[in-house]
């Protein structure tokens, strides 16, 4: 037997045994590992959100470090009191985390109506949060504190806007869920999308608490 077989011998080689290529059994998903321990597609979507959090966190970590450095560098930093409406918006956002959990619960109970209702409520609460944040901007502007007034206000606007944009992304996905649920067509990734959205939403909630703390402490 030659030490090196010619490449043309390859297909025959594989014909013996399975050669590593099992024909696809009818219940095998094909190309992927067999689903094990819960719904794989849900796990994959959630893993995606977890990884995505890493990137978003680095964005806000960079802003945080820039803020701390910028404050320490010069004497033009002018602290200001946060608009009280922020506490209302915080409560609204926390509440929306509760309602998105209710949506997940409805999903588990396979209640389409419940799911639709709680996703909608969460989206409305998210929109309300954004509205309250805008009121916060308005109240600052009323006090003559604008984006370029001084570095403290610059970072306030940048951080709240950055968080708000991420939140609008979440609301857009909720709107998508609402549309998909309305059309009633088969939707194999439904659980995955809803669970991933809920995870993302909780993350934005925690991120907001962090930003609020930063704005309070590092004034």
């Amino acid at each position, binding site marked *: 037997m030659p030490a090196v077989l010619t490449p043309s011998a390859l297909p025959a080689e594989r014909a013996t045994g399975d050669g590593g290529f099992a024909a696809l059994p009818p219940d*095998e998903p094909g190309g992927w590992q067999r689903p094990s321990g819960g*719904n794989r597609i849900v796990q994959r979507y959630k893993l995606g959100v977890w990884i995505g959090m890493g990137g978003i966190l680095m964005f806000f970590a960079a802003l945080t470090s820039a803020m701390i450095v910028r404050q320490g560098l010069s004497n033009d930093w002018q602290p200001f009191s946060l608009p009280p409406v922020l506490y209302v918006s915080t409560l609204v956002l926390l509440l929306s985390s509760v309602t998105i959990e209710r949506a997940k619960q409805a999903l588990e109970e396979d209640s389409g109506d419940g799911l639709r209702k709680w996703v909608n409520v969460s989206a409305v609460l998210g929109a309300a949060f954004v509205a309250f944040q805008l009121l916060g901007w308005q109240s600052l502007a009323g006090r003559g504190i604008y984006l370029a007034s001084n570095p403290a206000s610059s970072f306030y606007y*940048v951080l709240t806007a950055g968080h708000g944009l991420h939140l609008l992304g979440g609301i857009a996905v909720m709107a998508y869920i609402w549309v998909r649920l309305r059309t009633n067509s088969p939707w194999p990734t439904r659980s995955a999308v809803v669970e991933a959205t809920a995870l993302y939403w909780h993350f934005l909630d925690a991120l907001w608490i962090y930003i609020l703390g930063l704005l309070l402490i590092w004034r």
Partner: protein
Amino acid sequence: MTEVEVSPEVAEYTEVHRHPEPKGFWSKYIFSVDHKVIGIQYLLLAVVAVFVGMALSLLVRLRLICPECSYPTLGTLFPVGAPEGVMTPEFYLAMLTMHGTVMVFMVLTTAPQGGFGNYFLPIQIGAADMAFPRLNMLSFWTTFVSFLLLMAAFVVEGGAPQTGWTGYPPLSAVPEATVQGIGQDLWLASIAVFCIASLLAALNFIVTILDLRAKGLTMMRLPLTCWTWFITAILGLLAFGVLLAAGVLLLMDRNVGTSFFVPGGLVVSDKQIDHSGGSPILWQHLFWFFGHPEVYIAILPGMGVTSHVLSTFARKTVFGYRAMVYAVVAIGLLGFVVWGHHMFVSGMSPYSAFVFSILTMCIGVPSAIKTFNWIGTMWGGKIRFTSPMLYSIGFVSLFVSGGISGIFLGQPTIDLYFHDTYFVVAHFHLIMGVAAIFGMFAGLTFWFPKMFGRMMDERLSKIHFWLTFIGVYAIFGPMHYLGMLPHPRRYAEITGVDFLVEGGAAQLHLFITVAALLTVLAQFLFLYNFVKGIYAGKVCTDPNPWEATTLEWAISSPPPHDNFGGKVPHVYRGAYDFSLRGAKRDFAMQCNDDKAVYGEQSAASGD
């Protein structure tokens, strides 16, 4: 065929990830969700970008050897930047900035990861596509928009930005400081969009590797290409968010009047700038926190391909596979804590510089491990000198040559002298520019038969290799001497410094420019070979012409739409089983079980 009722879970799972083969032109070639098409789209983008980048570098070289020469065509194209065909110093700076930006972002970041990674990662791990195919499509098209934004900077009033690919403020932050209009804004917008595209792509790569590996394919059985794509994706995920944040702040400094990076009391052209208290150094920190990992984003996939190709054509397993994996991980980790070595002359505390210097030296350890292991892989092997093998050996050579000058530059005392000289230009071009490009040449010639079902012309590839290999050393070798003079970089022309204007330096510049012209010409040979290969190359019916081991070589060329044609690959062994004792042939594919490798009897007797 018997109908079998599948569980809802599996039905759901299958439904989601078996996207049907597209029929229409748009869904098949333009807005495709197939990772193979997207990989080729990334590669095409990089090819266009690399020729733009090369043209820009030639303009830079021509301006350096003859500041007063006139090029009428250029005068027609850029009446402001090159009046009557004579390039202004501002035009020189703009070409230099765009060369760096196009090459770093649109070539070195897109092709190795977005191109080859997209095409071969799912196949090498036995998956039918990336984890999120639609997100993958979005990543590419976002990158494309970013490229268009960058190109638009050429044609707006005031022309392309002139602040270098690092965009240091206050030059980049104060529109009054340069004649340019919105070129710099377009540049920043392009970078910001590119960051978003890269973040989405990084997320997709990481989930794909963690979640979609075939049965039996443990992390320590992954081909080293996959490992480098994995670490590159992690670097991208953690680095691009920081650049995005910095870019947003700089855009606001330019356009809304904030003062993140612009210092107070700045006077530009006798005019007091209305900013206060910002720090240009803050930009440098944020930029280089991204910038250094970016270097590894460019080079790591090249390392992966090199390891892969060296092992395949030396017919030997990778020497120290685990050490190679740990070295890649170590390089990735260390890459995040050495950014300060780009800022030794920024006035940082000598103690900080000392720490950054020590950490930088530490990178020498995993880099040396990789180099020794590459040599160890080839040592005593039955080497087949194919073109991908030559490019990979070229990679090792360039990596070492560029790496050694890095040890000089990593020491603050020496860097004070070398900073912003041609020594630095030589260093980074060799190690992250040309070495990474050689990694791409290796990848392209190696995977070409798999991607297109045809062979490239080996003879032409080899001629191209030697021309390019000698060419790049002829370009960047003499730059070390220029740097030692020391000849500063980024100067359109030197006036009033006799020893730089007369004598050796000018001749070296001339030599480098001629070498650059010839090397660029040689690239058309590769382009010709590539295009000819696609349409008229020798047809390669053999799925495994190189007798390689990884999964992509077990399927037909080009691969079918769902990669494995409805079958499930199982992996039984590591990625580099060559020259096995007692085996029926000198390599074992990852999907071959012992029975297939050693035969029925040997497997039964447990030999």
